């Protein structure tokens, strides 16, 4: 059975049994080519997919999934989901009504290049890095690509499918000069294999990591902070999204609870999530419940406009569904961002402060429930409007909401970061933050 046949079979059986059911299938193909020491060291080729059902019986919700698509396996899935639902104590569950959403291809032929070219891309990136005498060790260099086909359907009329994917060049290496060692990483991500350029990725790595060599200690104090897009994107993906998820609001975990319509950030700060962005890496025509994609302004000129919702949280809070339902075939209904980005501004003019280029240890050092963070960082000291010298062994600390309210300027160029979801940010200037160093 194909995934679409399996979906149709499940819906047909569900109707026979008098169950409300929603079926989500995803199928992913992945390829990873890892280069080391001038040769291909490791290759992983994988195709993995499965089909998950959510059923609602007497207002109770149950889940089950299968990676096998035979009538026998699918019958078992429906029966288990039904039994799992009946065990629940919580009632009030429902499936949203929907319609025909069509089939969409958001990837096209972007990954269709011959294998040999992909091998070469990984090997070339590694060779370009090793050619620089300051590169002491190339720890990891890989080309990887991923292509996902998602199919959705429900007994309440939802039906649709889409395909998306990306190609990635990634490297992590150590540079050294006169006793100073710095480890860094760099990547390029695109929907088109041919848009990747190993030479450019290597140059970006050498420039970004090379500028940190010869770092000096930073004196503890309060400084103006200039977050590079990568660093701010990490913080926003980790902390910002947590605060904006309606699921966390309902569970009493978000500091933004009850603040709709209030000022929660600097008035130059506008935060948008847009699944309709052409060419966006996380673009999709509809969410995991079949709610059509649309652009959502979460924070507008500093004012909190809405949380991110699925049908369940929207109903519980009496608010409009923003179409942020997310679910893997093995998992339960949740909420996730798509292309999340900070609207660029008028530009940043540096005078005195610290450029924060990268943040580390986000899972341990950032607590989204309290909003507090204390993170090891890498950066450069800015003096008299110039990047004067690199600094090291310091942490930057504060409260995320205070940081948002102290944003004083935003860069003009948006840069996308795939490390914590797909997050876009310009350079972000923050009036003052606490830095702990020597």
């Amino acid at each position, binding site marked *: 059975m194909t995934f679409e046949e399996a979906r149709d079979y499940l819906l047909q059986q569900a109707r026979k049994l008098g169950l409300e059911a929603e079926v989500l299938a995803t199928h992913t193909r992945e390829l990873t*080519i890892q280069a080391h020491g001038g040769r*291909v060291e*490791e*290759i*992983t*080729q*994988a*195709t*993995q*997919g*499965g089909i998950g059902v959510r059923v609602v019986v007497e207002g109770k919700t*149950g*889940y*089950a*999934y*299968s*990676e*096998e698509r035979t009538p026998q*396996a699918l019958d*078992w*899935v429906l029966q*288990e*989901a039904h*039994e*799992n*639902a*009946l*065990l*629940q*104590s*919580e009632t009030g569950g429902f499936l949203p009504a929907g319609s025909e959403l069509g089939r969409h291809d958001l990837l096209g032929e972007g990954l269709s290049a011959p*294998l040999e070219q992909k*091998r070469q891309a990984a090997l070339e990136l590694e060779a370009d890095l090793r050619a620089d005498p300051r590169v002491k060790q190339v720890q990891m260099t890989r080309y990887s690509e991923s292509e996902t086909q998602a199919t959705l359907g429900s007994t309440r009329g939802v039906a649709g499918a889409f395909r998306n994917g990306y190609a990635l060049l990634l490297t992590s290496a150590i540079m050294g000069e006169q006793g100073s060692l710095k480890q860094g990483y760099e990547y390029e991500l695109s929907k088109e294999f041919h848009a990747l350029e190993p030479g450019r990725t290597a140059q970006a790595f050498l420039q970004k990591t090379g500028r940190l060599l010869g770092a000096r200690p930073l004196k503890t104090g309060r400084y103006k902070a200039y977050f590079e897009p990568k660093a701010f994107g990490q913080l926003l993906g980790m902390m910002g999204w947590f605060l904006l998820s309606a699921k966390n609001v309902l569970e009493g975990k978000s500091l933004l609870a009850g603040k709709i319509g209030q000022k929660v950030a600097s008035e130059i700060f506008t935060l948008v999530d847009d699944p309709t962005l052409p060419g966006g890496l996380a673009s999709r025509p509809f969410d995991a419940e079949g709610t059509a994609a649309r652009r959502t302004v979460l924070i507008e000129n500093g004012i909190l406009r809405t949380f991110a919702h699925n049908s369940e949280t929207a109903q519980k809070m009496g608010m409009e569904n923003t179409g942020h339902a997310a679910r893997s075939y*093995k998992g*339960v209904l949740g909420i996730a961002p798509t292309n999340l980005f900070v609207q660029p501004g008028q530009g940043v003019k540096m005078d005195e402060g610290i450029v924060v280029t990268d943040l580390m240890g986000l899972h341990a050092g950032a607590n989204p429930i309290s909003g507090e963070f204390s993170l090891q960082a890498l950066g450069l000291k800015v003096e008299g409007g110039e990047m004067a010298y690199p600094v090291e062994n310091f942490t930057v600390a504060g409260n995320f909401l205070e940081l948002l309210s102290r944003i004083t300027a935003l860069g003009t160029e948006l840069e996308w970061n795939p490390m914590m979801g797909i997050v876009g940010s310009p350079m972000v200037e923050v009036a003052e933050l606490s830095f702990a160093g020597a």
Partner: protein
Amino acid sequence: MLDEILVGDVLRRARLGGADFAELYVERWRRRALRVLSGEVKEATSGIEYGAGLRLFYGTEVVYAYTNDLSPESLVELTETLVKLKGSAGQVDAQGQGGLDFRKAVAQGLHAPAIPFTARDKRYRLERIREAEAGAQVSPQIKQVQSNLMEWEQEVLVANSEGKWAEDRRVRTRLYVTAIAQDESGMQTGVVGPGLSVGLELFDRYSPAEIGRKAGMQALTNLRAKPAPAGSMPVVIGNGFGGVIFHEALGHLLETTSVAKKASVLSDKLGEKVASEVVTYIDDGTTPHGWGSSEFDDEGLPTERTVLIENGVLKSYMVDRLGGMLTGYRPTGSGRRQDYTFAPTSRMRNTYIAPGSTPREKLFEGIEYGLYAADMGGGQVRPGSGEYNFAVKEGYIIRNGRIEEPVRGAMLVGKGPESIKRIVAVSDDLEMGPGMCGSLSGSLPVEVGQPHLLISEIVVGGQA
């Protein structure tokens, strides 16, 4: 699970493409999980996982691919892609052209369940869980009880280009109860989680009410415990899950995964005295119904009982196929993997320190001041140096040979290879405890175990 002709075709194509060895691993899982918090079902999920992993050897270089599309077209395409990626297509190996004559080995049902999952409905399970919750209510200070029931059924087929064909069936059940006790001083937990290669007879072997009671009592003990002392002292480690220290700090150093790379301090030490002579350390994949038992490993070899250390002398490592090729040691049926998304590596099964002859009470005699680590929690180890740190889940002060007041927050800190030399006495009350072990080839069910034993000196990290 898969047609013999198709399996043969895939393996033959891989050999024709230049691989020295090809192995196909196919599995189907049925998993159920039930999480109940304070009497209410919080999560009930069920799923079928189904897929295949193809591993090719080119000398000692390995390539791996997996898929859960098991149609003939998909498997053939996977094989061809892997061969092409290796860049060796076109090198026809004459040996690969012949047909494969599989020698089939099928599991005998040594660990088969007495009460299969299908024998009882979900209500029955929920009732047993509620018995465990009721059992945990040993005091009004028990504020919350959470129970997790896991049921796994796994069918496995391993076939390789040497004609091996092995089929295994593994059924496992585990009930995991966490009790939380709270008073003005704070919150403490107690955890008890028996698991075996059995079906629903787990509830007959371990009464749910008793599992709950133990978890509740442990939480209460920790609530009235004082902060643990710090310093170097003799420590008696309890039986059962206490064996986790030697699993981490000794067992992992004996897997060829680290031995072959000389990343283990115990590399190249066969025949040498590495532990005190009261120590015999065994890894046994054949224990009937053991949580880490199976009839075949994930490379299709029959599991076995491997004596690793005998009376202090290193006798064997735990060896998988690749580890055997790299080191020359005989494979010990230790190749394991979490599922088809991982290539196998050498892993532990049910690993324990064998019973000694010292009666348990004698271990405590003569200890003026020390720690009794009755139950252990999690920890970390660095295989290169064997350095470990482990949290004591339930601990007591030993004073003048007697077990006295409970203490909490103790950490045991040391180096595995040094600690095993300091084991001075081993009791005769061997018990095993189930756990999940995470490493290169994923997360796997294993048992750890030991009798009560005395370590002459160990660093205890505490706050007092």
